[in-house]
Structures are given as structure tokens and as C-alpha cells.
């Protein structure tokens, strides 16, 4: 079977893991946010033409990788198949969803939890890290998205 092409399910929101060019460690995946060049406010997804801070009228932003680790702010799951445009597995497999606090950015970011981890395995305050994983597939491509995985799970 031919290998499928890995395609981000959304462009420019996260990096895939990148192999090092000099034989060193692989660069892990990360969400790509924006940081205001004037006041330092982060945003995810990226802001490109306004800063959310009402005290700041900056129009210049750097694209920055966000913290790859955070702690669970809250969690739940999706026992029933979400409606389109979600592309479910067939048969449908329930999955967990977390909202994760990123300490450096002082913000909370959501995402699915990797397969095989359910709500019974999760706790508020638990450390999680970002991975890139399959969201859905078609005949040619594997579409990937960011997900969260318990650290040391």
C-alpha cells in the first residue's frame, strides 16, 4: 500500500515535527501563535492585523511556536458523533477533549486528546504535551491536527 501524504488539516496553525538537519534531535511539533511586537500579547490562532489588548494599537506580530506543554484546565469527551464538518472514523470512536493552560502565554488552548486516553485518565491540573496526530484520512492523504497527550502516559 502506498504511503499517504501527511497534510495539515488547517494551514499555518501548527508545525509538524521536523527532523534535524545536523543529526541532532528532532524538533517536536508546536502550535503557531502570534505575539504582538509592542505589548507581547499572544494569540492562537494567529492575529495578523489587530492586537486584542485594548491598550495596544500595534499591527506588527511575530509568528511564534507556543509552549508545547501545559496543564489541564478542564476536560470532557464526545460520546456521540459530532455533525459535519467533523469527519468521523467509521465506526465512530468517542474521543476526549481538553482545555489546556499554557503558563508562559497565560492562555488556555483546546484540542482533542490522543486516542486511547479517556476522561477517566484525565485530571484537572495534569501535565499534557502537544503532539500531531491523525484527524481523518482519504485515499491519498492523512490529514493531521494537534492533539494533547498526558505526559509520561
Amino acid at each position, binding site marked *: 500500500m502506498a504511503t499517504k501524504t501527511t497534510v495539515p488539516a488547517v494551514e499555518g496553525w501548527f508545525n509538524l515535527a521536523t527532523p534535524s538537519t545536523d543529526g541532532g534531535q528532532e524538533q517536536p511539533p508546536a502550535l503557531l501563535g502570534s505575539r504582538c511586537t509592542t505589548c507581547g500579547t499572544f494569540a492562537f490562532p494567529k492575529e495578523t492585523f489587530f492586537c486584542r489588548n485594548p491598550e495596544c494599537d500595534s499591527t506588527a506580530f511575530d509568528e511564534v511556536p507556543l509552549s508545547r506543554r501545559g496543564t489541564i484546565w478542564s476536560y470532557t469527551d464526545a460520546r456521540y458523533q459530532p455533525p459535519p464538518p467533523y469527519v468521523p472514523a467509521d465506526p465512530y470512536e468517542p474521543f476526549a477533549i481538553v482545555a489546556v493552560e499554557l503558563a508562559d502565554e497565560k492562555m*488556555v488552548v483546546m484540542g482533542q486528546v490522543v486516542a486511547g486516553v479517556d476522561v477517566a485518565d484525565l485530571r484537572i491540573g495534569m501535565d499534557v504535551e502537544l503532539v500531531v496526530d491523525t484527524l481523518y484520512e482519504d485515499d491519498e492523504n492523512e490529514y493531521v491536527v494537534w492533539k494533547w497527550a498526558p505526559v509520561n502516559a
Partner: protein
Amino acid sequence: MPEKIAVLGAGMHPWGKWGRNFVEYGLAAARDAMADAGVEWSEIQMVSGADTIRNGYPGFVSGATFAQALGWSGARVSSVYAACAAGATAINAARAQILAGLCDVALVVGADTTPKGFFAPVGGDRKDDPDWLRFHLMGATNPTYFALYARRRMELYGATEADFAAVKVKNSRHGLNNPYARYRKEVTADEVLASPMVADPLRLLEICATSDGGAALVLSSMEFARARGVTSPVTIDAVSTVTPRFPNTVIEMPNFSTDSGVSAAVVGLPSFRDSIATAAYEEAGIGPEDVSVAEVYDLSAALELDWYENIGLCKEGEAEKLLRDGDTTIGGRVPVNPSGGLSCFGEAIPAQAIAQVCELTWQLRGQADGRQVDGATVGVTVNQGLFGHGSSVIVSK
């Protein structure tokens, strides 16, 4: 403080899953509201529609759609969309014109027809729309967000599954005799806790359904009301339509993230949901201690508990006690959702915030048969629309 305006009439089409054109529900509600007010359609000077995106273009311009259904009369017209807050925003559009002296009497209408199951985003490939993307990239439905709050409540304040079930049991009793409610069946805590888990820790019977329905109000200046011989009408004393303040650090539907708190103080900043009713209380010159009845947006049974605190009925972390003590049950200190709430109605988005005011109008008039809060004099509604639309209305008599 702004002047009060009068609620001359209230009307609703029963909530349900009727599958008919939304205009039909709005029209029925409008006619009931005008009959209740004793005002003819030809006298209405302004029509304020609460929009629905779910029913195509006629829904996007609902003010004109309802006006046409009633028969073109040359009235001023306004159509507003603010998701779940659309009804309160439409009320405020009419109120602002009345208070500005641009019109004396206005009709506010909202109605919706909804598909079965989870609310889904607008169709098409919409990769620049966060509401579309949250379904596509995360499978995050509305109950996902409700469940995040519910789990947080359990963690922070010791809420239990039994507490969430007790909210549902209370509301199901409240709505039993409400002729406009869709679900009029008493449920037991055991039945709630035996219903399927949808989004842990929330179960099917703890999550509000999506419904068809319509609600309408006839609003007027106090002078117009007096001229009609209505000397002591229910009045609207405040309408809050505030946005959050930056940084909003609570995850909000349909977003992927919160604001970042690195560049501004978070400590001491009221949460968005706290700020909504606070703005209404300030505008009305009253406080939560003056409230005798409340209609809050119980998208989930757990969220009703959050609202108790957000509208100041108790301190943070004390909502479970308020519930367990029976304070929010009819007959208690400050009954919440005597209509049965979204629990008994299901959500008909543009109609819902108007329906909250209809219920409080009947409560304050003493006309809420079978669910009357005795001696109610001040009522508050609260609700929140997608992306940051606050909504709270204070009525008194």
C-alpha cells in the same frame, strides 16, 4: 439611570419540534403580544426582529420578514443578529428608539426552526470561520464547552452529578404547567442519572435541546402606556448588552483559545459572565438582593449553577448550597427558571431571550398560572451570545 419603558404585551408560540416555517411562529407570537397589549398592528411604529441564520435570508432580515407577514405598514424596521443574545439586542434596539423619542410603541419578534440533533455551523467549506473550524478540527460541539464548565465546577466547588440532576428535576417541575414549554414531564434524579452521557460529566437530560418557537413583546413609552390607561405596567428598567473585558481568560464557545493575560492585569477583573448582569443592575440602580425571580440561560443543568453566582444570587462556590436549600425552587427565596428554563423549552435561539422577558412579565403580573412566584416585583434575565454578546434584562412592577 435611563427612563423605564413599558411592556404592554407579551406573546409566545409554544416551543416544540413542529418543523414549520419560522415566520409562522413569529407571527403567532406577535399577534398574541399585540392582543395582550390591546394594540393594533396599524399602531405599531417600529418592528425589531431578532435574526436567525438557520432559516436563510428571511431569517437574516427577520424584522422585514415579520413585518411583511403582518402586512407592510411603513413602520420603522430593524433586524439584529447576536446569536443567543439576539433577542435582548432586539429588545434594546426598540428600547433605544423609544427612549430617544423616535417612536412610542414597538413590536419585538424572534422565532426559529431548528434541525434535529447538535447545532452545526453554517454549511460549505469555511476555513476562515472559527465556528466551522471548531467542529472540523476538534469535533467540539456546544455541549463540549458546557461540559468543560461543568467539570471545572465539580473540581473547584465540589458540585456533584446529583447537583446537576437536581437542577433538571427542579426545572422539570417548574415547567410542568407552562403551556409554552416543549417538555412538560416530571423527571426524577434517577432518570436524569440514567440518561446517556453525552459530554462527560453532562448527560442527555442535563443538556438543552434545540427547538422551534417564537416570542414577541410590545414595548412602549410610559406616556403611551398611560394614554392607554395602563397605569402600572411591567417595565424594562435595564438592558445589558456588554462585551467581555480583555483579557477574557475563560474559554468561550466557539473559540480555540482564551485571550492571553501576559500584557494586562487579570486579578480583580470580573469574568465576562459576572459582568453581564452587573451592568444591568448598575443601569437599573438595584442590586441582586432586590431580585425576586430570575430566568437564566441553562444551556446545561450545571451552567444554571454558574449563573446563580454570576448574577449575584450567592457568592462564588455557594450555588450548590442555594440549590440544595431550595432557595431557587418556586416557593424559595429567589426562584430561578420558573418557566422551566431551557431545560423544558430547548433553545429557539433568536426567540429565547425574548421568551425570558415574556415569562418575567407574566410572573410580575401574577399571570403565570401553575408556576407563579408569589409577590414577584423584580426580575432579571441573563444570557450570552456566541463570540462575546452579553445579554441581561431587568424588569419590575
